């Protein structure tokens, strides 16, 4: 067998285009059938799929197990996902396999529905997302192919709060999100002080940008912070949660990024795989941005991609905005430089367990969730974690769940304790469902306390 070289520059770009032309959240919702229609027209008319640099793949369906590797779906996977979700998640796995087999150099899953607002526990849809395609790919890469360090750069205009939640305590996953300042946009989070759990401080990096940030501002952040940090972190893989709603015409946000800016970003970032997230300027941005990203990934000339109303120099960054962005980057640079000391200090401060309470709002499904999360700060492994979750819809309790997660490198003591937590809570009538996510053995268990029915994946 020939030596596998996945870093070569001559391989193809894998592309999965799955526009889910027969799936919508509701008929007039931004996440509707029409979303990628004009993108289809543009990339098919360009004949991109025929080019020797590009290989089109057909998606497979993700399995409940693939999803359980990341999520606690309450009550179960089937209740939270449609076939469209399984295909979108299956698309990223298909590309992950192609990448690992050396069939492609890089790849782009141009698929919907998106995923980056989906957190570890899933009671419903929030921010148009049910399951997190990116996180499902990361856990698949690690379980199936043994990758350890992975970097995710979230280039959507919204804070990737779901992805952040999933990898919050994981020091081996670097999560960087730049987005429009949370004080001005959904989901209202993503500030520099959100920087990861005690063992993973500085491995979550949030870069809030002022509304109106231009190509210049975003490329400043990329050149002066993101690229150097990636160089320091030395990940096995760089993945891009490629939202397209920083575009100057996006109806749901207020930034001023261009198609050319997005293409150039992907050229510099050179991600191994890209996954589409949001982007709702379906006519004025998406056809051009997607064409540009595909070309940049395939090493093709993207300089001819231009929105009909765009002229170079259309947006100029003000001096104030420049100072603002530079100050944010200065603050983040300090976090990054001191990350190891931050972890040391936090571990010294917290003792054996770290607890936090969270409130999570599901805007699409109008669900309010309260969580208490507990992580053992173990010195032999990443420590097991439990989440006690209760979801309310209207004035009634929707569901309650107790979730136990074991890390891939779990030590014997954490294994035993986690198992015990799972068994103990099966008898706890406070919870409707009890889960054990055993990433070490790649087995997943869910238990319904009322029926005493257990399911294993």
């Amino acid at each position, binding site marked *: 067998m020939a030596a596998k070289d996945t870093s070569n520059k001559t391989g193809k770009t894998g592309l999965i285009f799955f526009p889910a032309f027969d799936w919508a959240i509701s008929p*007039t919702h931004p996440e509707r059938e029409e979303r990628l229609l*004009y993108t*289809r*027209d543009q990339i098919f008319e360009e004949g991109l799929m025929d080019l020797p640099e590009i290989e089109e793949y057909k998606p497979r369906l993700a399995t409940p197990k693939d999803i359980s590797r990341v999520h606690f779906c309450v009550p179960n996977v089937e209740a939270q996902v449609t*076939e469209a979700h399984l*295909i979108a998640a299956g698309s990223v796995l298909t590309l992950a396999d192609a990448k690992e087999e050396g069939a492609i150099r890089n790849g782009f899953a141009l698929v919907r529905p998106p995923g980056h607002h989906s957190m570890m526990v899933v009671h419903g849809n929030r921010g148009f997302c049910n399951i997190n395609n990116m996180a499902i790919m990361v856990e698949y890469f690690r379980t199936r192919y043994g990758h350890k360090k992975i970097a995710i750069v979230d280039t959507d205009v919204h804070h990737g709060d779901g992805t952040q939640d999933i990898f919050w305590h994981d020091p081996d996953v670097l999560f960087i999100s730049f987005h429009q300042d949370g004080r001005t946009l959904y989901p209202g989070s993503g500030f520099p002080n959100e920087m990861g759990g005690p063992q993973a401080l500085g491995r979550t990096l949030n870069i809030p940008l002022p509304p109106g940030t231009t190509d210049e501002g975003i490329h400043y952040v990329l050149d002066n912070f993101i690229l150097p940090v990636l160089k320091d972190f030395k990940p096995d893989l760089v993945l891009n949660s490629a939202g397209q709603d920083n575009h100057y015409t996006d109806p749901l946000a207020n930034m001023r990024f261009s198609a050319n800016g997005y293409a150039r970003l992907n050229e510099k970032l050179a991600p191994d795989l890209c996954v589409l997230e949001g982007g709702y300027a379906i006519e004025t941005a998406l056809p051009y941005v997607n064409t540009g990203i595909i070309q940049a990934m395939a090493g093709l000339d993207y300089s001819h991609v231009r929105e*009909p109303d765009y002229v170079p120099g259309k947006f100029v960054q003000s001096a104030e905005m420049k100072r603002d962005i530079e100050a944010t980057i200065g603050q983040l640079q300090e976090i990054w430089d001191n990350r190891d000391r931050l972890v040391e200090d936090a571990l010294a401060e917290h003792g054996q367990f770290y607890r936090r309470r969270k409130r999570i709002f599901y805007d699409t499904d109008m669900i309010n969730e309260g969580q208490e999360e507990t992580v053992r700060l173990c010195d032999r492994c990443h420590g097991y974690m439990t989440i006690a979750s209760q979801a309310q819809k209207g004035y009634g309790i929707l569901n309650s769940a107790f979730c136990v997660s074991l890390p891939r490198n779990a030590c014997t003591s954490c294994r035993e304790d986690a198992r015990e937590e799972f068994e103990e809570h099966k008898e706890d009538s406070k919870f409707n469902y009890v889960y054990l996510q055993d990433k070490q053995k790649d087995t997943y268990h869910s238990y319904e306390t009322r029926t005493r029915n257990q399911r294993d994946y």
Partner: protein
Amino acid sequence: MLIGIDVGGTTTDAVLVEGGRVFRSAYVPTDHDNLLGCLLSALDKLTEGVSPYKIERVVLSTTLITNMIAEGKTDPVALVLIPGPGANPKDYHLGQDVFILDGAIDYRGREIQKLNESQVKSTALELGNIGFKKIAVVGKFGQRNHVHELKAGEIVASVVPGVQVELGHRVSGQLNFPRRAATTRLTVATKDRYREFADQINAALKNRKISAPVFILKADGGTLPLDKSVNMPVETIFSGPAASIMGVMALMPTTQTSVVVDIGGTTTDLALILSGKPLLSSKGARVNSLLTHVRAFAVKSVAIGGDSAVSVNGDCIAVGPHREGPALCMGGPCPTPTDALRVLGMSDIGDAAAAEKAMADIAKRLCCTPKEVAQKVIDAVVDKIVSHVNEMFREWEQEPAYRVWEIVKKEKLLAQNVVGVGGAAQPLVPLVAQMLGAKAVIPEYAPVANAIGAAVARPTLTLNLRIDTERGEYIVAEEGLTGRADRKNMNLEQAEQMARKLMNERANKMGIGEYANEAEVTYSEIFNMVRGWSTVGRLLDVRMEIPAGIIPAWGRC
């Protein structure tokens, strides 16, 4: 009586059929430098003693255009593109003589940049000075709005005297600008030569007092009246394999899934008939290195056949891919599968002693018997064919789809029949079928199945209708037809009715009106356009096709 003549790579086969039977068949060796001559000599051989008044229909296939393209003998064409924003036209690898104009149309058919008429004029002058007599004008999204193509074409025609101009939207209404550009260029590059050929055929038939309608066979297994086909000469490429597949459709009508195996001297052509319908290549035919919009059956040519050279590589026997000449048993230079078949008693072609010697020479080197060698040779051939068949099914299963139901519901198909046509097929087909777990079928008249297919294939025709109710417009690109569509809430059923009416008109214009009722909707989509939170219009696309099929006069289907 119906006449079918298929010009193949080595022989030209002709049949005269009536009432589901072959009344007479004939063949002549193909002379690639004189296609007309060999067509006519096959015709004369076939119709000797037959009254021309009894002939009801004549269908021809021709390799004229395929050969012109393969040999690079097409006429020089300037390709004038109006690409607008998107890819750098250089990345399309459309070859020499590409000229770029300003102007742009978007995916909705809206003008986003004006055509620069003075630039068109100066480009036209330049083309005239260089001496181009044929020009293809193709705009990105020209099929959604052809004003730029029309205007540019008009200016070029007025500036360059005697120039032939072909416009992209008339060639294909489908998405894919580089394929449309390549197809448009090939169309104008072959039109003159094809017209000349068509005129000669018409004259020759007239001389023979044959007044029956004459059709030409296309790559999608359909026919078109010869005089209409002069506008779309490229559609006649790859009609040989199409003829064989149509022959199988005529000889064994079924709704089952079959593999058609046509084993020749150097290559084996494979095609699939899925649940009774021949599989088309998904986006269009590849002609040498050029990707086109020509509808064609998905045919895979595998470099293995009865005359493939057998060689020994260490302990292994290799078959093909090259041919050094006929089989040893036929007086050729080297051992071949044909010799192996002879040794195993699976055929009685050629000299038995020569075949035995061919295998014995190899047997000595491998320390085994000639029969064992022959068996290995045949196994290698069968393995190769079977693995390519499996690959074809796999490729079909892996064809991308863009809707949830298409991905979830796509069934897995298995071959139920392996149908052999062509010379060397007979002894090998049962072996291929066995490995695929399918039934082996050698239809009656298998050696002339191709000519029968030509004789009884019915016309095919495509029409793409697009309606944009927000803009209040509809367009049928291939017809160059546009009009108002005022009903904002038009539904798919209404759009399909409209497409059917337009298809009737198009079929009548093409002289095949009697087949219009066979037209099916092969693709349709409807999208609500929502701006803000309200519906502002609908986009509807309907593709209607008269698919490949057999004329009723064949009397068997």
